[in-house]
């Protein structure tokens, strides 16, 4: 695709902005920011990827993954701002465990080789999806706890531990955070063709080959999200309590 034809696609942004103006949705500013950011980010990443692919040095692969996890941690931790304790390192832990276990297994079983072409995009998807599951978990844990504040307090008052008082709501939050992943896996191919597969097909790959990679991704993402959400759920609930085992949710 030429740069000229790519620039025509800005017309789609214009359509969205006109609609927003017409209905007074007030989204124009955000749309401009989103367009500019996505363009700059992806173009920069494109060149970085090209450089990393050419160098083919494991150090750069690891650096890319570290960068992804760093940005994802910063982003997901925002959802835990109102929690009493420190959240960011728990999110970091969850994302690292998710990435290391899933990517590690793929490499150990020889499903994909340790080359930038495979490891970087797959890691990106694992970390990105784990980040979304983590954000959902943090959101849901706070709303579940607020909704069941009386039960949490009653359990503590009966001499229950913080863990005993919060466990049902941690599980509920984990369940809720995994529903989007499971549901989109269920309907994949029926409702929409997943992005990676679409990209491969447009780029000229055999659809059957594209489907195989897509299945690999779907299964890895299911595991990755579950690992991230469960790790985060069980490591983050202590941030709801102070050292006197009192519920500290605002």
């Amino acid at each position, binding site marked *: 695709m030429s740069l000229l034809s790519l620039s025509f696609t800005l017309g789609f942004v214009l359509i969205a902005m006109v609609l927003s103006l017409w209905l007074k949705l007030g989204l124009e500013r955000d749309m401009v920011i989103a367009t500019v950011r996505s363009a700059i980010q992806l173009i920069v990443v494109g060149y970085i990827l090209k450089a990393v692919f050419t160098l083919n040095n494991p150090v750069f692969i690891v650096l890319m993954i570290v960068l992804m996890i760093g940005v994802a941690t910063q982003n997901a931790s925002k959802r835990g701002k109102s929690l009493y304790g420190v959240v960011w390192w728990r999110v970091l832990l969850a994302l690292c465990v998710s990435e290391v276990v899933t990517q590690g297994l793929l490499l150990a079983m020889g499903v994909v080789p340790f080359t930038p072409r495979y490891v970087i995009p797959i890691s990106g998807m694992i970390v990105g999806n784990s980040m979304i599951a983590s954000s959902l978990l943090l959101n849901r844990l706070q709303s579940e706890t607020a909704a069941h504040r*009386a*039960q949490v307090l*009653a359990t*503590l*008052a*009966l*001499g*229950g531990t913080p863990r*005993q008082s919060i466990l049902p709501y941690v599980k509920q939050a984990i369940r809720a955070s995994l529903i989007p992943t499971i549901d989109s896996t269920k309907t994949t191919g029926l409702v929409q063709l997943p992005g990676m597969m679409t990209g491969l097909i447009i780029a000229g790959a055999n659809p059957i080959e594209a489907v195989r990679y897509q299945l690999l991704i779907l299964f890895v993402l299911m595991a990755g999200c579950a690992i991230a959400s469960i790790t985060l759920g069980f490591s983050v609930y202590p941030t709801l309590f102070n050292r006197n085992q009192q519920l500290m949710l605002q």
Partner: protein
Amino acid sequence: METQISPADTEAIRFEHVCKEFIQGSQKAPVSVLKDVSGVVQKGSVVTLVGPSGAGKSTLLSLCNLLLTPDEGRIFLAGTEVRVWPVQELRRHAALVFQSPVVFPGTVLENLEFGLKLQGKRLDNPEHWLQQVGLPTDILEQQAEDLSGGQKQRVALVRVLVTEPRILLLDEVTSALDVSAAREVEEWLLTWQRQTQNTVLWVTHHLEQARRVGDWTWLFVAGRVVEQAPTDVLFTHPQMELTQRFLRGELSGGGIS
């Protein structure tokens, strides 16, 4: 000559200059809820806490089992400061029953067993306990959510009492019940107290109830203890002018009218 009996042997709870503030409202301004509260609750006694709503009575209960931490002052249970107690042990020693009844998802039986299960124990005779509080025994397998407010409160009470606390902290526990049920539960709690010789700290807005059940009564107004006296004395010969005004019904809300 000092007596040989240490206070810890006779005192269930000792408050020493307890203060508590809450951060409230959009201005984040601290509001003083309890101011310099001191007093002793003797083992085996029933102390009723009365006063206008917002006077800090419920807060005092939550401080006893460390669901809240005092900002200043100290609270001793059986001679040990609350922050020195192992938290779970403290909360089993001094059990709190909330004003609005809380039930957990599941059956009535599961609710009755809830506190014991936290300790890895089981409830042997749930029917007996239900009869004690005037509930039919055939509700054991019903969903607790489906009970009426008054039934939920009785289930919540049994759930606490089966864990055998030594101190019972009651926060207007009969206010969700109709008059006859309230009286029935009140009688049952008193019988339990007489049999076990345990200590009860009982917040009530119902002055007749405070008078019926209390050995001692403390009057709170605007976060301060105005008067502490044997219940009969407080109701018949109040010493403080504020107490006299309260008993005449001249005080309402959190402050002094």
